[in-house]
């Protein structure tokens, strides 16, 4: 069954890595619904948040392939329920609509959106929320004439109290240390 999954990949900040990762999707003909690159809570580590709509098996496979990339520290996949997430949308409408009646202002308030900028020609509205919510507002604005519309990629955070990555990093450090000591043991034996 296809459903939405959020893939989070933690990586070194390496030129070309994004390309390597998107190739994994392209090759399997999986569409990326949205993608966001950002810093993470851990210094020097970037985070990619990728939303796809596909079968679990495929998502698991893709997550492993992402993690296989040399510069990727760890990749996770989550269902929407497992994460808190938001997207941000910006709408540009003619300012005239705002002047003619208070309907538009009410609509903005109803949707918990806010106005970023008003000029004599246009007004820019901002709304944060899930896709359905930002879409709802868009549908409401259509009658006023939407001059421009844009929705960001998703940003998401897990519901668990600690970042899974910190846990992973601890384990990995122990592992790398073990590898190192085994190696020095081997070389000293020689």
């Amino acid at each position: 069954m296809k459903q939405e999954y959020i893939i989070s990949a933690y990586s070194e900040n390496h030129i070309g890595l994004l390309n390597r990762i998107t190739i994994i999707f392209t090759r399997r003909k999986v569409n990326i619904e949205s993608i966001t690159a950002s810093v993470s809570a851990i210094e020097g580590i970037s985070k990619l948040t990728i939303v796809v709509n596909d079968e679990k098996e495929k998502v698991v496979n893709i997550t492993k392939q992402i993690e296989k990339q040399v510069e990727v520290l760890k990749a996770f996949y989550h269902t929407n329920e497992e994460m808190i997430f938001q997207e941000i949308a910006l709408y540009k409408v003619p300012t005239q609509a705002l002047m003619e009646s208070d309907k538009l202002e009410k609509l903005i308030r109803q949707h918990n959106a806010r106005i970023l900028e008003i000029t004599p020609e246009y007004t820019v509205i901002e709304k944060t929320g899930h896709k359905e919510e930002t879409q709802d507002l868009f549908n409401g604005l259509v009658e006023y004439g939407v001059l421009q519309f844009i929705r960001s990629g998703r940003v998401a955070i897990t519901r668990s109290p600690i970042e899974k990555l910190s846990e992973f990093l601890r384990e990995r450090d122990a592992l790398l240390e073990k590898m190192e000591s085994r190696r020095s043991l081997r070389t000293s034996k020689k």
Partner: protein
Amino acid sequence: MTAKEKESRRSKRQNEDITGSEAVIRSLIEEGTEIIFGYPGGAIMPVYDALYDYRNVLRHILTRHEQGAVHAAQGYARATGKTGVCLVTSGPGATNLITGIADAMIDSTPLVCITGQVGSHLLGSDAFQESDVIGISMPVTKWNFQITSPDEIPSTIAKAFYIAATGRPGPVLIDITKDAQFGKLKYKYAKCHKIRSYIPEFPVNKEKLNQAAVLINEAKKPFLVFGQGVLLSGAESELKSFIEKTGIPAAWTLLGLSALDTDHPLNMGMLGMHGNYGPNIKTNECDVLIAVGMRFDDRVTGNLNTYAKQAKIIHIEIDPAEINKIVKTDVALLGDAKRILRLLKLLVKKKKYPSWIREFSQAHDVEVEKIIQSELNPTNAGLSMAEIVNKVAGLTNNTAVVVSDVGQNQMAAARYSKFSTSRSHITSGGLGTMGFGLPAAMGAKLGMKDREVVLFVGDGGMQMTIQELGTIAQENLPVKIVILNNHFLGMVRQWQELFFEKRYSFTEIFSPDFVKVADAYGIPGQMIKSRDVLESALQTMLAAKGPYLLEIMVEKEDNIFPMVPAGASVSDILLCADDVK
């Protein structure tokens, strides 16, 4: 330049910062590189110039095409276990490598490929011989990196060798801009031992190990299937002692060939589309299937919906992405095959499965009667590929390194060769690259000077990289080339015969007089057509001190059997053409 000038130039170099180009060469030497396969051109000329000063330390093999260079590096790597190295120019030089890199990627071969690139100020400007090699090679490399500053050279090369050879090996590519080659750096080399985002090998999970041992100890009909992972981790003796203790029959994939003696009593033969009858049908009868260092390629599994459904599956594998990728496993043992087999052996009981083994030998008898017997002793006048391969095995006492190309020749070589030494079978498995054989045989010979290297190649595949005869002649490499000439793209013709109503669409192929071609290169050879001269011709070939080309006219429309038709179950393996519905 006079000798004196040269000398002063060299000593001066040691007192000052060195060029990026020299750093490339010195870094390669630090990594133990003995041979580079390459082809020069504008964007890599500074490195070639630096190489000139090191030509007595670092051997360079000038191939006749960059595809030849990369396949030779693959052959070298597969024969020796070391990392193969290629050096080529930008643009067409680099793009000519791609087939070999893709081949190395799918067959997990460690390679470091160095490509020249236009000056960094020209990147992205469609400069002469500029191509986006990083972009092009991304999907087919384990890792790649573009160097634009000389300081990055030593550390990047160190990283490249580490990544190529550790974990599941694979090809890496380093693209070096011309200005980085010309520029100076303070040279200091440190080998790479870890990368924080890269864990080549996971520690063995003790609990899983116990679960696997329980499954194995309780099994009535266990079956072990193994692939190249055994060779890559150097687990040949661990594999042998594991099956000897447990008494479990084993079978190899095409790339697992030679990891165990052919004549070992527990070696049941080859899996897969043209593998042996027993291993294929018993896959669907065993109760525990232990897969070691193999990735369940579709040429091995046939129809997945009916593949080993009755069995519990244990998968010993170094690459986490392979676990559950194709076949759902019951116990996944992540890690190095050598270590896991050693640990697992301590937990399993000493056993024997005489009646289960007898089932394999009965299946083998069927295959001998229906196929092998007549393939080895044909009644037609035309020679069979099988009898030729078998004769070579006999004459070399099963000690040759057998290299094959792709097609019927490859399957005959795999089915009828015999091995008594590890790393003695080199072929293009995952990609099935025609033209792989000849250059790979050169590389194998350069890596294994004391071993006889025999290539089996088709008339089609031979013409894909025939130019490498030039390299063989120039370097006087004693490669023994056996062309199995059936005047057809035989394997494709076989499919046309069996599944496309004998409509031989463009599979008849004209060939030159291969012996004359060899002669033009100064390589001796002969062509034979009949059985009565086969043995003496092979003896002449094997006795030759240098390279030798033996063209053998074989039966034109022979087929390779058994065969699991694409998409069929392994247990529905066909023994002869009449079985095809």
